[in-house]
């Protein structure tokens, strides 16, 4: 766990994100019907979900480790990763909605992908409510770890499997081509992939900061 106190990967993350913001707005993109310049949203919308996915994954990993070890730190990492993931979840939803306003005509157009994203959001809100419902710390840690492990595969089914089975307007679902398949140029890839890595690092950084704050709080409270 030493690397969370090191600076090099945080600097790398900031550089990558700054690069993708500048390049994302300035580089040329292919001129496609309907999409036009809104295709640039892919640099900001998709990385949010990647970042969310990473921190939720880390959270599940530490929930499993908590069940095996019973160490309080593992539970703290799990909850702070979920807290960070929820921020990125909201950002992903909002950036998607803004794009949908221009590409589909409505902020919320009852699309299966949007609906299941909203349901999966409820899943993680339920996780936070569950944590508030239990007072005893060890019991809270154990039960919420179990729910977290239970929720993660269902989130994957909701976000990635169910929308693919139905007719969704979202790229990559229901027979619609994903951006990667036909429309992506190499110039776009040169922005998109660094954006994935950059935002994932930023999400991890936020989670580690929150975790360190919690550690300090715990130390102060424990006399």
């Amino acid at each position, binding site marked *: 766990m030493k690397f969370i106190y090191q600076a090099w990967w945080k600097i790398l993350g900031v550089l990558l994100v700054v690069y993708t913001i500048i390049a994302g707005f300035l580089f040329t993109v292919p001129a496609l019907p309907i999409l036009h310049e809104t295709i640039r949203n892919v640099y900001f919308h998709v990385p949010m979900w990647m970042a969310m996915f990473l921190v939720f994954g880390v959270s599940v990993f530490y929930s499993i480790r908590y*069940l095996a070890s019973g160490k309080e730190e593992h539970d703290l990492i799990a909850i702070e990763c979920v807290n960070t993931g929820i921020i990125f979840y909201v950002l992903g939803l909002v950036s998607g909605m803004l794009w949908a306003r221009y590409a589909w005509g409505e902020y919320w157009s009852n699309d299966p992908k949007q609906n*299941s994203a909203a*349901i*999966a959001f*409820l*899943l993680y809100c*339920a996780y936070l*409510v*569950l944590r508030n*419902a*239990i007072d005893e710390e060890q*019991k809270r840690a*154990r*039960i919420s*770890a*179990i*729910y977290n*492990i*239970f*929720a993660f*595969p*269902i989130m994957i*089914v*909701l976000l990635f*499997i*169910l929308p693919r*089975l139905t007719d969704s307007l979202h790229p990559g679902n229901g027979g619609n081509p994903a951006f990667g398949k036909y429309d992506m140029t190499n110039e776009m890839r040169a922005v998109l992939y660094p954006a994935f890595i950059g935002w994932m690092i930023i999400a991890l950084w936020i989670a580690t900061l929150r975790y360190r704050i919690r550690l300090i709080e715990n130390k102060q409270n424990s006399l």
Partner: protein
Amino acid sequence: MELLRQTGYLLKKEILLEWRSKYAFNGVLLYIVSTVFVCYIAFNLTPGFEKSQGYAVVWNVLFWIIILFASVNAIAKSFLQENRSRLLYYYTIASPQAIILSKTIYNTLLMSLLSVLALVVYMLFFNNTVGDGWWYFLVVLAGSITFSTVFTMVSAIAAKAGNNGTLMAILSFPVIIPVIMLLVKISKSAMDGVERSLTYGNFAVLGAINVIVIAISLILFPFLWRD
């Protein structure tokens, strides 16, 4: 083998307890019949609704909502009625996997029976518009099995976290909404008499959800019960 033997004994005990008191069964049956009756009266306030375009849609959705709330009520009891000392006794004599497995199987049996009865009662009161009756019946069975597996695990979690009904609803509804959407879709195509082979894929997804949920409960329940 030991696991199966223990599961068998626990299942027998669950059924025997239910047979003696008939509490869950009668309670939920009464719940279903009264809900159906309330809906029947409410629908008859609008004459001519049965002939209208949206009748089939409402028929289908209403049935699933009744089944949903009935199964939440039925299955929430499965861990609530066990007191602490009795649970402690089970844990000394049986493996946790056997306990969750027996509960799941018992709830599956109970819910299948109840949902079939609910379907009969529902068809008695409401004008039946189902095209492919046997397929609809099969969808109802598949739905009640999925509800039971999901709600059994969630009720185990909710029972540990203070036993309140709100928590049960909050925890289970995000999980059950996609299942409900799938079920409404398949059962609607059964009502319309759509070619059966077109819904195989959806059945496969339901089956996959069941397998995932049962596997997760078998893995996670041992961590849940120990205090």
